[in-house]
């Protein structure tokens, strides 16, 4: 036994929460995206831990899909950042509140 499963769980939860905090309190779009990356990495850690716990390979495979998905998402979101920056000249999310109500 390396560690109890709970400890892996706690570590990944802490990472997930840190990512969530970053998403919630930062106003810079880039930082929000970084926060999302942190959340997804926390998921990866939990999956790898669970994979080892159950001694099955599925969890690890899922991590690969997660990574692929993340890279697809990042490519779109960064393209979006470029696009938005071109339109409004800022990456501050507070600038984007034209629609409301």
């Amino acid at each position: 036994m390396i560690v109890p499963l709970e400890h892996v769980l706690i570590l990944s939860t802490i990472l997930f929460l840190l990512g969530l905090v970053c998403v919630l309190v930062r106003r810079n779009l880039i930082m929000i995206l970084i926060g999302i990356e942190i959340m997804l990495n926390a998921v990866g850690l939990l999956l790898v831990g669970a994979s080892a716990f159950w001694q099955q390979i599925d969890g690890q495979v899922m991590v690969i899909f997660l990574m692929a998905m993340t890279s697809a998402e990042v490519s779109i979101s960064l393209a979006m950042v470029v696009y938005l920056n071109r339109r409004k000249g800022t990456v501050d999310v507070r600038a984007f509140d034209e629609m409301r109500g």
Partner: protein
Amino acid sequence: MATWMFYILGAITVVATLLAITQRNPVHAVIYLVNSFFALALLFFLLGAPLVAAWEVIIYAGAIMVLFLFIIMMLEIAPGVEADRYGPNWLQWLPILLLAAALGICTLLLTGLDPVGSNGVPHWYASPRDFGYALFKEYALAIEVVSFQLLFAAVGAFYVGRPERKSKSPAGGDR
């Protein structure tokens, strides 16, 4: 040994992430994050996933974070961009704190239900051979779908990032 490594690496990851999310300058944040991902990669290795560890370094630390850096540099995003005009917003932190408390209670309950020790993560190692076998045999279909997804994400990134009817943007199109 492995147990100690786990806690040390875990601590490094948490601290590096904490530093990353509190940086005012996005460039610094990215650098800290790369650190955190390296430690995470080692954790993966420790938990018996060498291939995932390698990809963590290659894809996350290597590609994605570099892409972030690239965009930050290209757009010349100044560190002060999000100076808060309204002062610190406590309401923003409230759900986080409550959530942390709730999750803490959850963990306590969990450990209370299942005595520590009965549910440990064993030493276990998935060889790249097993991994590849699973990936391309059992999950071949998923690989196909994901590859399609990457294709269309690239198309979309290209479409969105392209300047209006002029030259092609280098931003998103070539990932």
